[in-house]
């Protein structure tokens, strides 16, 4: 199931005056604001919006950049050296968006669940904990690591298991490292044809740092993460609408189960 970009959420809305007002609630001094568990973004009363919470499990082979991607989406500093994540770490990202259908602004509260591959294998409780009540799974592969791409189908079946309707999105990381690219556009297109899953692309940490210097939103890095966060929000919202019976279910494809 793939929701076309811009069909649920108004793209570029954050650049409008109304969008900027919402954006201000998640920024502080041109950086992303960090929210604890018992807080949430505060908006002026006249623009008060609903919050929609979702749990997103980030899955992928060791070293593809799960932790780096989550840090980037949250506007945090991406760690410069790699080490395997131990245990589970979750990060909440607030993301305001405007729904095309109703014209309503909604604040998406996306909680990303990230865990290291070694921890998954070593401790039994980790995978069930990440899957419990998850609304979406991001499957990551790295453009510079062919085996992480080839492993996707196996990974999808292993991680999804018998879970019901879940948003499934594939993200290719380190997209900008053309010199080391190991996965071609044709590979990705073929994968998309077979699996009918949306595929997004993300830059490497070094790439973003370079690009950041050139663009005006250097501090926030919002321009870079907006397509993925909007795309994720669209799929999640669409899935909720389908589950509530508000819009018809998509045509079932062989590997998908319909909404219950």
């Amino acid at each position, binding site marked *: 199931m793939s929701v076309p970009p811009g069909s649920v959420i108004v793209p570029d809305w954050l650049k409008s005056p109304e969008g900027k007002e919402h954006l201000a609630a998640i920024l502080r001094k041109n950086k992303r604001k*960090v929210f604890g*568990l*018992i807080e949430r973004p505060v908006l002026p009363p006249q623009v008060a919006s609903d919050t929609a919470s979702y749990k997103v499990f980030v899955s992928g082979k060791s070293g593809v950049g799960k932790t780096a991607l989550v840090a980037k989406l949250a506007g945090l500093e991406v760690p410069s050296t790699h080490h395997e994540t131990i*245990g589970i770490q979750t990060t909440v990202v607030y993301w305001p968006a405007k729904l095309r259908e109703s014209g309503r602004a909604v604040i998406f509260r996306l909680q990303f669940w990230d865990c290291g591959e070694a921890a998954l294998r070593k401790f039994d409780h980790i995978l069930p*904990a990440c899957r*419990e009540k998850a609304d979406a799974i991001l499957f990551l592969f790295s453009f510079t690591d062919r085996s992480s791409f080839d492993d996707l189908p196996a990974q999808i079946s292993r991680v999804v298991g018998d879970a019901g309707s879940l948003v499934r999105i594939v993200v290719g990381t380190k997209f900008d490292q053309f010199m080391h690219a190991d996965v071609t556009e044709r590979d990705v297109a073929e994968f998309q044809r077979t699996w009918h899953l949306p595929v997004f692309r993300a830059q490497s940490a070094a790439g973003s740092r370079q690009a950041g210097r050139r663009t005006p939103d250097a501090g926030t890095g919002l321009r870079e993460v907006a397509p993925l966060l909007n795309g994720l929000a669209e799929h999640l919202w669409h899935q909720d609408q389908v589950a509530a019976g508000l819009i018809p279910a998509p045509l079932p494809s062989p590997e998908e189960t319909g909404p219950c």
Partner: protein
Amino acid sequence: MEPGSGPVSLLCLAATSGVPLFCRGAPTRHQLPFSVIGSLNGVHMFGSNLDVALTAAHTEGTRVLWRAFHESITLIVMSSEEGANDFTLSRLLDNVFSAMVLVLGLEELANIRNVERLKKDLRACYKLIDSFLTPAERTGDLTQCVECVLVPCSTTLQECLTAFTGAAESRFGCLLVGGRVAVATEPWWQLAPQEVNLLAWLVGSLLPSTTRDYPVYLPQGSPMVPHRLLTFQLLPGLDICLLCGPSPSLEAVETELVPRFWKPLLEPLRACARPPSVPLHPGVLAFLLINHEQKRSLSAVLPRGVQAEGPTLPLGSCASVLRAFYALVVSHYFSCEGSPGELPPLEVPLGGGSHSARHCYVVSAGYKAYAAQAPPHQLFLLLAPEVPTFALRPLATHILQYLVGDAAF
């Protein structure tokens, strides 16, 4: 100086094979040549083959300490820092190995099966180990007492924490503010002080996260069997920590218990996030108070007011001068009570007295420092040079009375 490039270098090797596992502290571009690493390890190994334990060596500008752990891991530390002493470096080695146990467990360290695998796994400890090499304003690594912070409404928070911890099927719960313990349940206090500090430093060294489910091996309490450390960031800089067994799930605690117990306390928690400053004499640059009975400590580096005159130490060096003064005093003058046998006396008292001092002070051009002990408390003060020397003793006595009495530490 950029962080991580301090004058302290730390080497970790597999004891039997001599394979270097990691090197921290020295700037990576000036990594020690393999021949130097080999010689440093070789001289230690040569001694141990002859049943001679080589523990320390001093050259003109550098001190070197060796320590082998479980006949499996050798740690070597070198420091060219001014004021470096064996007491500080010995504590450092102890903390570093405990940090490795905390993250990897003793089994993997004591019986190395695959050196390459271990090297990779050890990278998860780097951030924690680095925090011991550049401790900034922290003191718990040296004192081995739990670093505490005084917060308003501590009774309310304590009650809520106890109830919350119980609801999460655990007995071990703690509220960290800025990486220091604000309130904790009674069993948490019964963990070894080093473990409590390690857990707090670990939380501070990890990537900022909303919640975590992190396996930890308690170096003294449970070095072989991991427990789950759950952390919940209530507000930025304010984390709840729980030590749990297999249940409950992270999801359940976060969605069911955190809102029920902690949402109603939003205002008191907000007040904790910016703790009130301790009103002390303006001449005080930094202080460290230790309660040896409870194994707790309170410390702060105080920003100077605008009325400060003359040359002043930058904030960063205030912290390191106080640490050096503490190390000097406890290794030479004050008996290190509460830690019998933990560390052998490394140096003979300067002046050769057999008695134990109750007060001592240092006067230099840039600062004055004063230490006083009144069991179970010890107070260490760093003061501005313009504070008259004759006023140091009454000032210290007054501050000790204030902190112990009114602030009820």
